């Protein structure tokens, strides 16, 4: 799911960053946000609607719409579309409103 060839941009090979998603180890690259790393791994469902539990992916990618909120290192409502991916992060789907 990563772009390899591009007429204008040069996507050089970057260092891998490992993280866990729902207990599974996945790899992103340096410079990824959590959401972009998940998407590159084919994970589109990031959150659920609060009442009907409908699956939700990202929508705005500017940290505005809350559609990508997940639990990151135990912290709910993390806006994964603007949060840089870090080595060893523990990322989970959030169920409900989240509790601190």
């Amino acid at each position, binding site marked *: *799911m*990563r*772009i390899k*060839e*591009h*007429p*204008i*941009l040069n*996507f050089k090979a970057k260092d891998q960053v490992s993280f866990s998603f729902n207990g599974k180890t996945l790899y992103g690259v340096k*410079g*990824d*946000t959590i959401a*972009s790393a998940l*998407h*590159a791994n084919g994970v*589109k*469902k*990031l959150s659920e*609607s609060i009442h009907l539990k*409908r*699956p*939700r*992916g*990202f*929508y*705005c*990618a*500017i*940290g*505005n*719409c809350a*559609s990508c909120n997940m639990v990151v290192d135990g*912290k709910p409502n993390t806006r994964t*579309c*603007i949060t*840089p991916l870090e080595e060893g992060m523990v990322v989970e789907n959030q169920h409900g409103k989240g509790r601190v």
Partner: protein
Amino acid sequence: MKQREVVIIGAGPGGLCAAQKLLEGGAKVCLIDRNASLGGQLIKQTHKFFGSEKQYASKRGIDIMEILISSLTQYGDQLEIMTETSVVGMYSDKVIACVKKDKFFKIQAQSIILATGASEKSIPFENNDLPGVYAAGAVQTLMNEYGVKPGDNVLMVGSGNIGLIVSYQLMQAGINVKALVEAAPSISGYLVHASKIRRLGVDILTNTSVKRAIGSEQVKQVEIWDLDPTWQGIEGSERILDVDTICISVGLAPLTELLQQLGAEVRYIKELGGNVPVIDKRYETTVKGVYACGDVVGIEEASSAMVEGKITGLNALEDLGYDIRASRLEMKALHEELKFLRDGPHAAKVRAGYLKRGMLT
């Protein structure tokens, strides 16, 4: 509480240009952005800009970003940059509440420039919340900033410039654009962009919209249908396309929430994208010493945001007691520049908006 001379919220084209003018004039600037890097939406704009030469026409957005950011590096301590910092509260006495990572802190500013930009709108259809239904600009970010494909087959919704440009950029990334649908009877963006994707074989279907997205966990297909002259779907005209991504490009809404918290007056002006701040010719809001520039003032191009940024930067300087007499001519030229950018048939909406605002520049 931290004390700061000028705080700029939002480091896109408007905020960066405001910072440049303030720094040139000698003010100390605090630049806040919720993203990890500066540049706002320029970071994903791989296309060449139109507009005017003064606003870098024929240069790519990503390159303009580099120029703007590198012009700020010479100022050292005069510029404080706070990235990954979200403003979560604003008060009428110019106190700004921020969160950076897990830390909460407040800043007392003497002057504030709001350059918060805009967010992409959506439209109602069945399953419009399924993963795979993304704002077009968001897909542009995913592709051009992070190098990740949104999917393999895309339906683009909306024929404004963002819809047309992102369709082309999807193809540059090796992604198939199945079609572009437009509810209106004609293409709304520049024909030069539309022609580019037509030449590559993308059907642009006017009087057509999305009826529903199909899929349970994510988009698998989309059903589109024809619209009658009253914009109602025509039964029997439905057809299904195999797509895994639906890009929504139906306009932007100014991000005025912070201005409203602060007590600045806003007004609904449809032509400018929705609620926009009431401003005077100096781009000052109804709260003294608080300015606004860029898409938050009204949806336009990044070129206008850059000019407005410079205007607000100079005006804020004046407020703070700096002598800007030497910049009188520059200020005049900036207003002329805006007038030029708002000329022509494609800026008719913006002009109508400014007419309602009582500010035909």
